[in-house]
């Protein structure tokens, strides 16, 4: 049985939440016409990316009424979309929600906030602190928002946590126009998508936006890469497109049978090595001590 994923490679307006919500409803309808099980929107698709001081103006709680149209739409098709989340203690986060059958089932807050070069996320947003997997239409999944995916540990933790698909909603600016027919950023992203997919034996779903904000162009090029490293579907660059891809969850099992890297992965060694480096002692010793403490009468 295959699962059909639609990626909305769209161009949200900056700071115009209501207009962007209308855009979402429109693209969700298009995805439904394509009989997709899930539609994935890029990073901050409801607000625009370089919001700067607008961040507070466009922010909302994850259960805010303004997100109700997505809740309603998700009764017929799963929806993943990006928004500025205001937490209960008034921090602002770059968030991506997953709505399923009229319910928000998962929110990922961007952990790695790029604050260098053309990026200033850290000035306006607080960092997320969790990498949790959840059940998506395409199987157990993790969300890595744009820069999150550039950190090797993130897809690794998701794969270790049981994910068979990693979603990467992005707002990646196109740059590096050297001769050779490809953007520098496109080359890097495709390399990552393929590497993670093949070596963690997961599907990678890269959903990038298009359009311009203050002279910076987002390059699109959304793609779905299978656990065998093949590109299932890839969108054009710098153009709006609803990209539809059929994924086969059984391929994950077949690839893992052929290539059991995850089965053989020594997570305990990773943990022990990092614990020692951070001066936290051996996890096994700590666990033993804690267990002994519990057993005491």
């Amino acid at each position, binding site marked *: 049985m295959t699962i059909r994923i639609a990626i909305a490679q769209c*161009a949200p307006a*900056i700071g115009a939440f*209501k207009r962007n919500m209308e855009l979402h409803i429109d693209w969700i309808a298009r995805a439904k016409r394509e009989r997709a099980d899930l539609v994935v929107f890029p990073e901050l698709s409801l607000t625009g990316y*370089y919001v700067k001081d607008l961040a507070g103006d466009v922010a909302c709680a994850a259960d805010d009424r303004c997100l109700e149209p997505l809740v309603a739409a998700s009764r017929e098709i799963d929806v993943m979309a990006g928004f500025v989340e205001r937490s209960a203690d008034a921090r602002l986060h770059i968030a991506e929600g997953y709505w399923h059958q009229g319910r928000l089932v998962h929110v990922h807050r961007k952990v790695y906030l790029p604050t260098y070069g053309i990026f200033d996320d850290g000035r306006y947003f607080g960092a997320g602190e969790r990498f949790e997997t959840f059940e998506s239409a395409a199987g157990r999944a993790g969300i890595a928002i744009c820069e999150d995916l550039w950190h090797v540990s993130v897809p690794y933790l998701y794969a270790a946590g049981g994910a068979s698909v990693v979603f990467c909603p992005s707002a990646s600016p*196109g740059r590096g126009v*050297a*001769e050779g027919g*490809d953007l520098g950023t496109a080359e890097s992203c495709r390399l990552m998508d393929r590497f993670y997919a093949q070596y963690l034996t997961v599907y990678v779903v890269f959903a990038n936006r298009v359009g*311009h904000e*203050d002279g910076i162009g987002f390059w699109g090029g959304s793609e779905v890469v299978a656990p065998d490293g093949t590109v299932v579907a890839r969108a054009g660059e710098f153009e709006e497109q609803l990209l539809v891809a059929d994924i086969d969850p059984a391929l994950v099992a077949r690839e893992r049978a052929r290539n059991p890297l995850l089965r053989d992965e020594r997570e305990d060694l990773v943990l022990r090595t990092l614990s020692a480096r951070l001066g936290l002692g051996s996890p096994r010793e700590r666990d033993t001590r804690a267990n002994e403490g519990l057993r005491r009468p």
Partner: protein
Amino acid sequence: MNERAIRPDPRDPSPLRIDEALVRKMLVGFLRDETAKARVRRVVLGVSGGVDSAVVAALAVEAFGAENVLALYTPYRTSSRHSRTDARAVAERFGFALEEVPITAQVDAYFAEAGGDVADRIRIGNKAARERKSIEYDRSWPDGLVLGTSNKTELLLGYGTQFGDMACALNPVGDLYKTQLRELAAHLDVPRRIIDKAPTADLWVDQTDEGELGFTYADADLLLYHMVDRRLRPDELIAAGFDADLVRRIRERVRRSHYKRVMPLIAKVSLRTIGHDFLYPRDWEED
């Protein structure tokens, strides 16, 4: 995939090469998107007969159609007659109408009235550049945007008149070095004569950019590429074989002209100040 390492080498200009088709697509998209956000569909630009404005005009015609491009040729009495011929050749090649608006009368009247030193060609040149821009802005009212034509080399060297030729609403070519812009010009089919002629601000007779700057664009572009784009320090550039004097002169030009590339300074006295901690996207859209 480009698997060859890029090394700083004054004899190797290949790092400056661009993918022209990709850049063209990016710049046409930039013009369309950014004008749409401003809710305008018409642009104004000065076409001088040089390669920079020829490229911007070609991109604008592709983005908006020739009927939405107002191109102004604004000669001063010292302007070269070749400039007019070349400006017309660009208009003919890309199919837009070129309007001629001479600026001699107002520039000369100003200096005569003000009793200024009309022999000071820098002042006349700056005045002419600002006169031209004031006309472009006037002609953009009420539904157009002024396009800039300053390239990355000029902007980094500060080789332009502040609020004159450097002024604009949108600049599609400001991130392309002169060498790269010529490459794009050939791809866009700008007449060969215009690509190959000696670049000039044409502010006085027989002026050439390279004569005035004291180095060639080819040398400056490669040096700037490694200095700016690839972040090499002056001592690293010199160690890689770049001329030490050229490195120092160009670095100093970039430093001294930085004021031209930023918004005017505002003295901070209040709790929240424009430009300091009142930071909104320029493309701030309405809901």
